[in-house]
């Protein structure tokens, strides 16, 4: 048997019916390699609009001989995403998307969502935390 090891892994995952989605209490994003940015293209399966972290699940297209794969893309909370202009309907099942993500260091199909484009409309969506500035011209405190 001269099986592609990735294919075997994919079959095992499919057989188990499971993929890993990173999710937990609020946590450091250091499990993601933020020095890396990769692009995935595929179809939205679900936007889990939940605290403490929202998770966008997409089925990435087969590419470079790899089979289609389910990816879980984590970002911040519904509250903080609302401030960036998201709603629970920003992504819906079936939407074609292209996303820029920082992958998990452990090689599992999970990543930190950086930004994305809804391919049917061209709408761009950015993840993360809102940046806030004082509007009272206060100098940085010196303490």
């Amino acid at each position, binding site marked *: 048997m001269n099986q592609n090891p990735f294919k075997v892994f994919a079959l095992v995952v499919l057989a188990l019916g499971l993929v890993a989605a990173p*999710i937990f*209490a*609020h946590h450091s994003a*250091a499990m993601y390699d933020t020095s890396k940015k990769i692009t995935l293209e595929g179809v939205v399966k679900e936007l889990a609009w939940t605290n403490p972290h929202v998770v966008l699940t997409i089925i990435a297209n087969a590419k470079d001989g790899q089979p289609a794969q389910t990816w879980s893309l984590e970002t911040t909370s519904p509250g903080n995403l609302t401030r960036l202009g998201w709603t629970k309907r920003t992504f819906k099942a079936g939407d074609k998307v292209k996303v820029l993500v920082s992958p998990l260091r452990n090689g599992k199909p999970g990543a930190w969502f950086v930004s994305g484009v809804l391919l049917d409309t061209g709408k761009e969506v950015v993840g993360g935390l809102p940046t806030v500035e004082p509007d009272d011209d206060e100098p940085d405190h010196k303490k």
Partner: protein
Amino acid sequence: MSSTFAGEIRAGCSRRVRCAAANLLGWVFVGLAVFPAASRSHAQQAPEAINPPPTAKDWTELAKLPDWSGIWFPDLADQRRQVAGNPPPWTEAAAAQVRELVQQERAGHPKLIFSGCLPESMPAWMLVSHNAMEILFTPGRVTLLGESDSNRLRRIYTDGRKHPEDPDLTFHGHSIAHWEGDVLVVDTVGIRPQTFIAVSEAVGLPNNGDLHVVERIHLAGPNTLHDELEITAPHLLTRPWKTTRIFYRQRQRKFDIVEGICLEASFTEAKDKYGNAILVPVPHDEEGIKITPSPK
């Protein structure tokens, strides 16, 4: 009245034996009279504390306080600058553990110090939060309500009460405060030893007990709030740590605090056999990673 009656019994005696008996009887009356009085006097010294209904004047007085309305969002860049420029004065033993945690995070294996959806607690909430809060003034109270952690809450009493002598230890401690001009001076004790003094969501150590936090909270500009903290943690820090955290006021409604039930994502929507909408736990692997079913 009873003791007067006892005195009359004693005054009315004419023979030594009768007098002795009368005296005894008299003192019994005195005792009967005094004992309930003593009980009443004790009750007067330590009446059961109540929260009196606020008066119209109490509500009016609130209008004289500085305006802290709106939503306050932390300056995250300044949190990092503070930690870099003014780190906690860790004990030698603590510093070694902190170095290890920093290495772990840099290696991509961050310790999940706020795992299990326990609250960030005091003082980590004020130090490293990425989330918004609002501040409510009511008579005798200042209340801090934060987003995330199943909604954070600090009750700060401004009604002049003292700390309990032996407070139950809690995640946010027992806070009392008074106003010094426009500065709210908050004193917090009774914090659980397990709460973290944190410099990030992956680097922090349990305070290990006897934690005391004093905060001077005040407007530093029209829309800038400073929380000047002095953290005394004798089992973790070599000296009290003074550090300031900055929050910026947001008035856009998109900043309104939303519900943040931390365990929400640990459950998924389902239907029971009767068709009721229910939540069921989702499995997690040993690293706390949620396991979701793959597409059909």
